[in-house]
């Protein structure tokens, strides 16, 4: 499998070095423990916002560090939760005296590593609040699973909560808004291919040319089921129906529609999918007032997409529109 890498074990550090140099006006990086931080941080008097997770989902999370979004990100090994040392270092680096919010995607490893870091931070006297994202409707949320995965809504939440912190809101308020975003967002993804992890060198699972995985996450594991490839219209319906049913979204709702590329799918296809999504939502009396289309939470080179719908109100819309300046998202500045 061809990749644009050097030695597999150096991928994360080399990418961090590349990002730091390319965006030196916005971010700096520190190694061992590895963290990506705002170049102008910590911002005194502002709640600090950190997240983190396995590498391989770029631009999430490092590409979202900067004004109006994350103050720091912790990149783990590819598809591997980062270690508590990283989150502790990040927490200390962003502490502006008003506490720190940890945004944690609901994966067993992330939950445990962030938990241990929060314990360590508390022991050092830093107030930490945690919000967990678990928007994936593909997994049944029950005592029979590890719970729903945190996927697309995490991107939207990081932006909205970053804006909330910029208003000077306190930690409890920032957490309230974060929990609201997670509660009002739902996602689902489908893959046309698996992905190839640098140290593995071949796809994580084999997917025949004429089949797709429905209900995939972002770590290259198989989805819930496999079906024959169908049109973009049918795939979009397969992803959108469970999302609409689950919240549920109703006629009269106003949403942010997020069509996310998993890394290996061209933008032209994402727009075809968005076109189908817009038709479905229009038919259901749901209006789309904001959109995000592109590769924002990826799974290396997996072909496919995920759809996230976030129910908006005035508060969330205002925070979404607020200025942001990070490597991956920039408006209002």
């Amino acid at each position, binding site marked *: 499998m061809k990749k644009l890498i050097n030695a597999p074990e150096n991928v994360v550090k080399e990418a961090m070095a590349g990002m730091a140099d390319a965006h030196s006006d916005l971010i700096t990086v520190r190694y061992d423990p590895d963290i990506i931080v705002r170049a102008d941080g910590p911002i005194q008097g502002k709640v600090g916002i950190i997240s983190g997770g*396995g590498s391989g989902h770029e631009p999430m999370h490092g590409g979202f560090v900067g004004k109006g979004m994350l103050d720091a990100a912790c990149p783990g090994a590819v*598809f*591997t*939760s980062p270690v508590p040392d990283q989150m502790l270092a990040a927490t200390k680096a962003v502490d502006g005296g008003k506490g720190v919010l940890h945004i944690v995607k609901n994966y067993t490893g992330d939950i445990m590593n962030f938990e241990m870091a929060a314990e360590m931070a508390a022991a050092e006297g830093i107030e930490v609040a945690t919000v967990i994202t678990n928007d994936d409707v593909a997994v049944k949320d029950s005592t029979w699973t590890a719970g729903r995965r945190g996927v697309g809504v995490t991107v939207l939440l990081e932006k909205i909560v970053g804006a909330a912190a910029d208003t000077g809101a306190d930690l409890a308020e920032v957490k309230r808004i974060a929990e609201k975003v997670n509660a009002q967002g739902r996602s689902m993804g489908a893959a046309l291919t698996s992905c190839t992890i640098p140290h593995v060198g071949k796809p994580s699972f084999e997917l025949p040319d004429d089949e797709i995985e429905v209900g995939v996450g972002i770590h290259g594991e198989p989805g819930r089921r496999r079906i024959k490839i169908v049109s973009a219209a049918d795939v979009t319906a397969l992803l959108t129906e469970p999302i609409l049913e689950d919240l549920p979204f109703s006629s009269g709702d106003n949403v942010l529609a997020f069509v996310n590329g998993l890394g290996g799918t061209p933008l032209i296809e994402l727009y075809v999918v968005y076109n189908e999504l817009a038709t479905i939502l229009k038919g259901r009396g749901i209006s789309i007032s904001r959109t995000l289309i592109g590769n924002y939470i990826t799974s290396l080179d997996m072909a496919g997409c995920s759809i996230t719908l976030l129910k908006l109100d005035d508060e969330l819309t205002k925070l979404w529109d607020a200025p942001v300046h990070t490597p991956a998202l920039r408006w209002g500045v």
Partner: protein
Amino acid sequence: MHITAEHVITFIERISATIKEQRDYLTQLDSAIGDADHGVNLDRGFTTVLTKLSGVADKDIGAILKTVGTTLVSTVGGASGPLYGTAFLRAGMATGDRFELGAADVVAALEAALEGVQSRGKSTRGEKTMIDSIGPGIDALKEANAAGEDFVNALRKGVAACEAGMQATTPMLATKGRASYLGERSIGHQDPGATSAFLMAQAMLEVVEGIR
């Protein structure tokens, strides 16, 4: 018989070598029902552990095990880092500052390790995890110990039960961890965590048999 601090160091070295040898196998198991990083993550952790061993060569068993635990937490990541890290930390705490362990002490350390894994991971038996090989292994070890068997024989029985537990994960439905996202597709695949735990148990047995 007694396990000394030196034996524990040898045990850690043996685990590290085994994990390195079996790295690709563990990764392959983790590709089927996971995200293909189990072997690589553990190998990274134990490679770092090896570099710390000379620093604890003259320390008590508790200190050695705690060093292994904190190193794993700081280097492995994923779910295995916190789980195996906690296991070694709790074993170290149970062992304390002794330089020699008898059979009952080893059992106590293993039980503390298992309890740590269960509470950190909020998991129990039957969920298709490392607990499903460790738990039965400790049960068999304790039973043989209590029946008066010599330690090496008791450990052999424990490791055999651990292996059986590992194999028994194959038909299980995963209700914890990443495999649980696959639902029924997790059935028919041996759990990577149960496998690495068995490899560690087997390494322990090899060292103890070598002492005899």
